[in-house]
């Protein structure tokens, strides 16, 4: 008696689960995109961002008060994960605006038709070098170049000149001093790899990395680990005096230090900086298109652009926005950092990363 009734129950349950599972498979692929309604200003707006997004309460509140739009922020992981999620939910987007996609990820978004075009009036104050998309599917918001950072005190104590170029890193006196991030899993790690490709060319960067490996480069999985655990110049007090981080990391060290130092404990190597621009775009199938446009205008406004640096440690793209004193004092990134054409990155990124993985980790 017990086994027969049990079997019946199990059959019923597993059948219903199978039906559920197959139903979901078809429904999610055939779901029609929600109709886009261009509504009057007011109502709501959902902004998808990466985890590093921060805006001051007062600045956001002022936008909400002036526009009558209630803004909801959804943090969706780091930039790579955020974009993956957006592509996956493209037919039923989670929000209206996506912020945080960088130039190295743009091709993915273009290929999948993630964004609808919108040309903001605020672009007038933005330098042309930040405007990478003629079709305005994405709008530049900020830039934070990826540069080598070093521990000033460490080099002073050792009476060793800080590195000045990529070439220095493969010299014997800099053996075992560098920690970088995995190019396959980390945004700054990828940017650093691209910087070496921009420097040594598509055929020369592999041998550079072989020499770097021979010279004891440490590769960790993410920025948190590299900067907060392995780097000797941060609060984590690791053992590596050179790290791949951002051009804006030195002011961050000053601002959060206690007591405030008179000079920054860390500095960047300007010749190693690689351009990284972050963009925002209106998601295709967004429910509140007019509000999304208003929010992108807001992100380019001076209020937001001047609020951003100390919250997210990025630099504004709006030429009219004043930078905080810590930035003008401690950010020494070059005006024209290393870069690669987006089309070249798009065409080769996956192959380069595979090659990098085999060269460095294999």
């Amino acid at each position, binding site marked *: 008696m017990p086994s027969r009734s049990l079997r019946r129950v199990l059959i019923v349950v597993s059948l219903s689960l199978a039906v559920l*599972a197959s139903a979901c498979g078809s429904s999610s692929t055939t779901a029609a995109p929600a109709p886009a309604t261009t509504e009057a200003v007011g109502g709501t707006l959902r902004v998808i961002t990466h985890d590093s997004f921060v805006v001051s309460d007062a600045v956001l509140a002022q936008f909400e008060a002036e526009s009558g739009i209630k803004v909801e922020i959804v943090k969706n992981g780091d930039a790579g994960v955020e974009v993956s999620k957006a592509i*996956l939910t493209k037919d039923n987007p989670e929000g209206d605006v996506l912020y945080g996609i960088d130039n190295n990820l743009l091709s993915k978004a273009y290929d999948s038709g993630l964004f609808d075009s919108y040309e903001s009036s605020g672009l007038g104050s933005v330098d042309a070098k930040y405007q990478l998309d003629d079709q305005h599917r994405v709008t530049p918001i900020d830039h934070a170049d990826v540069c080598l950072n070093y521990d000033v005190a460490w080099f002073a104590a050792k009476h060793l000149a800080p590195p000045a170029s990529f070439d220095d890193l493969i010299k014997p006196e800099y053996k075992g001093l560098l920690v970088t991030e995995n190019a396959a899993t980390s945004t700054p790690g990828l940017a650093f790899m691209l910087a070496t490709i921009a420097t040594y060319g598509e055929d020369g960067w592999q041998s550079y990395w072989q020499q770097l490996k021979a010279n004891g480069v440490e590769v960790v999985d993410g920025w948190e680990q590299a900067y907060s655990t392995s780097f000797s110049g941060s609060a984590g007090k690791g053992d590596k005096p050179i790290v791949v981080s951002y051009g804006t990391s030195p002011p961050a060290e000053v601002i959060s230090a206690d007591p405030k130092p008179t000079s920054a404990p860390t500095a960047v190597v300007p010749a190693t900086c690689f351009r990284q621009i972050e963009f925002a775009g209106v998601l295709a199938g967004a429910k509140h298109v007019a509000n999304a446009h208003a929010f992108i205008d807001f992100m380019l406004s001076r209020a937001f652009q001047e609020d951003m640096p100390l919250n997210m440690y990025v630099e504004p793209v709006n030429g009219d926005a004043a930078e905080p004193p810590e930035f003008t004092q401690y950010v020494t990134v070059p005006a024209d950092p290393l870069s690669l054409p987006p089309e070249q990155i798009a065409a080769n990124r996956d192959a380069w990363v595979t090659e990098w993985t085999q060269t460095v980790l294999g």
Partner: protein
Amino acid sequence: MTGRSRWAWLGFVVPLAFLGVFFVYPVGAIIVRGLRPDGRWQLGVFGDVVSDPYQRRIVWFSLWQATVSTVLTVVVALPVAALFARFEFRGRRLLWSLLLVPFVLPTVVVGAAFLALLGPKAATGIDLHGTIGLVLIAHVFFNLAVVVRTVGGFWGNLDPSLEDAARTLGASRWQAFREVTLPLLRPALAAASSIVFLFCFTSFGVVLLLGGPRARTLEVEIYDQTARFLRLDIAAVLAIVQLVGVGLVLVVYARYQQRRSVQQVLRPRREVAHAPRTRGERLFVAGVLTGMAVGLGAPLLVLVWRSFAAGGKPTLRYWQALGASPRGGTLFVSPLSAVANSLAAAAVATIVAVTIGGLAAWALARRGRGTGAGRAATVSFDAVLMLPLATSAVTVGFGFLIALDEPPLDLRDSWWLVPLAQATVAVPFVIRILVPVLRSIDGQLREAAALLGASPAQVWREVDLPIVFRALLVSAGFAFAISMGEFGATVFLARPDHPTMPVAIYRFLGRPGALNLGQGMVLATVLMAVTAAVVVVIDRVRVGQLGEF
């Protein structure tokens, strides 16, 4: 017995329905999306992945490091379990509760502590960074509580007279343990080690943080293929490989476990444990306690110290910032509200997990001794309930995104997602802890009660419940701890204005500067303290004599 059979189906159907909606459906959706990208099945990718030496190396690494970690954990945990099972000493109950603290800590925090102790600049002078050794040690550190509390709790209620008899008959202490106690402990040992194996097999943060970039488990690979490269086809194949592999382990375990369960008279712990009497016993107690202080205490103290230290000097400023939500801070909310969010989610998750897991354990224990089809069904039911532990959090998280995105089940931004996901992870624990105890209840006791005219409900209340109550509490403690510490799924599902403590810690450590690092350590310390406090309370709940078991 008919009175009980009428409701028995509930024990199967409720857990299966829960699992179906919150696990099978979303995971099935993401796998189908990967293997059927445009309406047609594309199964060629199976061959590509299975024949890829890179992927095969990952599978092999996942398997062997999990096996070694599990064996190590059991070996280290057995003396500790014996200590708690057989001896009374001052502070015993507090230590028993504190055991769970390492278990809830986010890997990123523990990783930092281990690097401080056994990393490049360690005070100990030992540098294991980037070696598999550090991964194994961390796995033992995290999972020790699983074995100690599961096995120790069971051991503490074993009748010691059998072992005493063996000793009287001339067996050495070791022989008595090996020949008498160990076989009796097997159901609990198998239950605990199967969970530890699953945790290590699907290890993510520990491997990333401590193993160096070359150490990759299937879980890490699935995460990258899903979240970073959006190669859902490869991810789907790997997820299936992981599910099948784990499924096999579970079936073997379940068959073994059923064969080995022995009905025995469980005794209240107070009749079993005693203060150390001989010199040998005192040495044993002192030795194990010292080992625990070094192995478990030192990494935890490093974290606490870091929350009070700025540049090597003591400070309170990280603690003073605890209640503040600074202008444009790292969180949208104050660290204190992260504490509240964690507690609320964990409370709901615990109730759900104990209800669902309790029903399932009851059904499993009742059917445990069936034969033929009934038994096969029981074995698969048991294995199916363990599958959430064997599934990558990113698979579940992305599955939720695409599967539960439309009414009536539009849960994408619902507050309930977090506790439900946590409960799914906790249910297998509840089952693992309850089933061995339920199966060990002497059937004769029930029959005697029934013969004397007790109704089925009375039998349950008077016979089963008193024995099970203690195990229910232990399982509730675990469910709570899991929910407090769960990170992988929570980070996908938690709303930004409702971060739990591990999510908030992760956000702090994700930003440069001493203040952020310090506040991350403060929150890690608070997480330890809150977890310890709640587990202490749960461990001390007594209803009449019930809690004595």
